[in-house]
């Protein structure tokens, strides 16, 4: 068990900068998820922590020791790969015990640890099988078992669920969370799936173009994204970005979307946006869940407006509606009984209490 620190870590492949000087502190027992689109440097970062890639510049510390030049086997880490990477010629128990056997642990100790890991992962009856006799989910469990038996300082997961089908992925996600609750080992988990990131993480690290966009708890990232990228990446369907202006109106402020449509800014937020009246490149950020059908008694900050729906997508518990607004397509989530139909008008309400204002030039949330 240990904390992991990254200090100005840089990785260049030939001329390409994959990771551009990132700083990150991961506490003992913490479950941190690195998330971002492909090519954002998250896997490279994980592989540098594992020691599978050399770092070009900066320092990596595990448990207080700088491990820049320490080979992977001496870093006391365990890694779970996307394609499982089980040794095909060994049985499940041989796969799990391989690392311990190399380190010449006593046989009784090896058996104890393998049995314990098999119990945690519920794979006791698979111990004598070969990997090819296992399903995808079982293989991934074995790969996790191989990590658990080593009792390492840090677990590294490199997109472990990407090869599984959707249903199994959700199930294994819960399994991973349960395992972490039991073994409490510091865990760094890489994924491109923001749902996985939100559901698993104590803290999420959003990466883009080799830099860290934001680090925070899932709630922080969801409610107070710091950049347009994070605002758009976290949450599904993604946040709507609508070009707008900030105007002074009736002693307060309002967000003008079109000549005919302007929403008053709630007082709680007005102070923050006071200097934006001159800014011509602003975006109103509103999540689909904050654009709903207007019901009879609207709360303060909920502003009704009329929309002409283009497309509706009934999901069962809710219906996603899409309509044009100031040149962009906006997505809202309405009650399935609100009467949303393709091509028909609907009275909508925007909840401005959850609005974000983004400077389109810098991409920062104001």
């Amino acid at each position, binding site marked *: 068990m240990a904390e992991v620190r990254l200090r100005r870590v840089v990785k260049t492949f030939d001329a390409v900068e994959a990771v551009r000087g990132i700083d990150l502190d991961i506490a003992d027992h913490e479950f941190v998820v690195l998330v971002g689109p492909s090519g954002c440097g998250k896997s490279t970062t994980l592989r540098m922590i594992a020691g*599978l890639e050399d770092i070009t510049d900066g320092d990596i510390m595990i448990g207080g020791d700088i491990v820049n030049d320490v080979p992977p*086997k001496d870093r006391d880490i365990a890694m779970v*790969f996307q394609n499982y990477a089980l040794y095909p010629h060994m049985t499940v128990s041989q796969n799990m015990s391989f690392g311990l056997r190399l*380190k010449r642990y006593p046989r009784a100790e090896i058996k104890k640890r393998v049995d314990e890991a098999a119990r945690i992962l519920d794979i006791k009856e698979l111990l004598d099988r070969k990997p090819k006799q296992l399903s995808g989910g079982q293989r991934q469990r074995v790969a996790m078992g191989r990590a658990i038996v080593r009792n390492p300082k840090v677990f590294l997961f490199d997109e472990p669920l990407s090869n599984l089908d959707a249903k199994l992925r959700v199930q294994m996600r819960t399994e991973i969370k349960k395992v972490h609750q039991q073994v409490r080992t510091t865990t760094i988990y890489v994924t491109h799936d923001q749902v996985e990131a939100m559901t698993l993480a104590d803290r999420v690290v959003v990466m883009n173009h080799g830099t860290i966009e934001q680090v925070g708890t899932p709630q922080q990232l969801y409610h107070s994204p710091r950049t347009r990228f994070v605002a758009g990446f976290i949450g599904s369907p993604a946040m709507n970005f609508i070009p707008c202006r900030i105007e002074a109106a009736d002693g307060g402020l309002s967000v003008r979307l079109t000549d005919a449509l302007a929403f008053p800014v709630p007082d709680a937020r007005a102070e923050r946006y006071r200097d934006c009246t001159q800014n011509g490149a602003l975006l109103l950020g509103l999540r689909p869940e904050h654009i709903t059908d207007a019901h009879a008694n609207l709360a303060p900050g909920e502003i009704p407006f009329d929309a002409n729906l283009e497309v509706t997508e009934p999901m069962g518990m809710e219906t996603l509606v899409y309509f044009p607004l100031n040149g962009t397509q906006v997505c809202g989530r309405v009650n399935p009984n609100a009467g949303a139909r393709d091509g028909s008008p609907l009275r909508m309400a925007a909840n401005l209490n959850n609005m974000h204002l983004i400077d389109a030039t810098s991409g920062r949330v104001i």
Partner: protein
Amino acid sequence: MATADASIGARRKYPPKYGSISRDRRWALRWSYVFLVLFAIFFLMPPIYMLITSLKTSAEISAESNPWWVYHPTLANYIELLSSSQYLGYFRNSAIVSVFVVTTTMLISVPAAFALSRMKFWGSATLATGIFLTYLIPETLLFLPLFKMFALFNQWTGIQLINRWWVLLFLYPTLTVPFCTWIMIGYFASIPKELDEAALIDGAGWLQTLTKIFIPVALPGLIAATIFAFTVSWAQFLYPLAFTTSSEQLVLPVGIITSLIKGDVFNWGQIMTGALLGAAPPLIIYAFLMDYYIAGLTAGATKG
């Protein structure tokens, strides 16, 4: 009712072409059997002729009778050869050379292939291509300069390399090592990279990764390479013909023709017997390892 009848009539007029795929397949199968039988006859003719001739006496071979039938079968050729210490000597030489060459080849080419396919070092790709290029140079081009080199070596050190069977132990690997290395590079390249990374994290060094992971996983490729090396060294003709002359130094392929062809007298019965017995060891090995051999060659062919 009338419409129903009409539709049935229409169906009879234009019968749907169900099963056309299986009909095509049946034809393809028939043709492939025709060609396979032709090939089988073509390739089996020589060994069958060898077998028939080996069971005849010299008199019957030279008689004007049907060459494809044995009228007075005899095992005399077999008995004579197998009791001849000379022939057994060739056999022993061939066996020793082949076993040694296969061992050396594997000891060199497996680690070489591992290094070239996995430890990316400066110039590793060029080296891998270079190894394959050396295999493309035929031995017919090499034996003359080699002869000259051996003569020079003799001048400098006084050690005679010509007409020594053990010198073949150094010559044959020049043919087997490049090809086996190439096959193994292809085979190792097909092993996912995560496997050695997992081993690396599990605490294995390079040597342990090779012996505990790569060799067991690439066993079919290893067997293919072994069979290849064995076949090359067992059947090699030019080098032993050029570099060994006296009877006790000869290996089987050269031994048979030098001792059983006296001037222009061909002892066909024994030549055929000797060749047939000589072909037996590779045949037995093939029969046991055929499945692995095919798997190994195809896997090596698509990668690298």
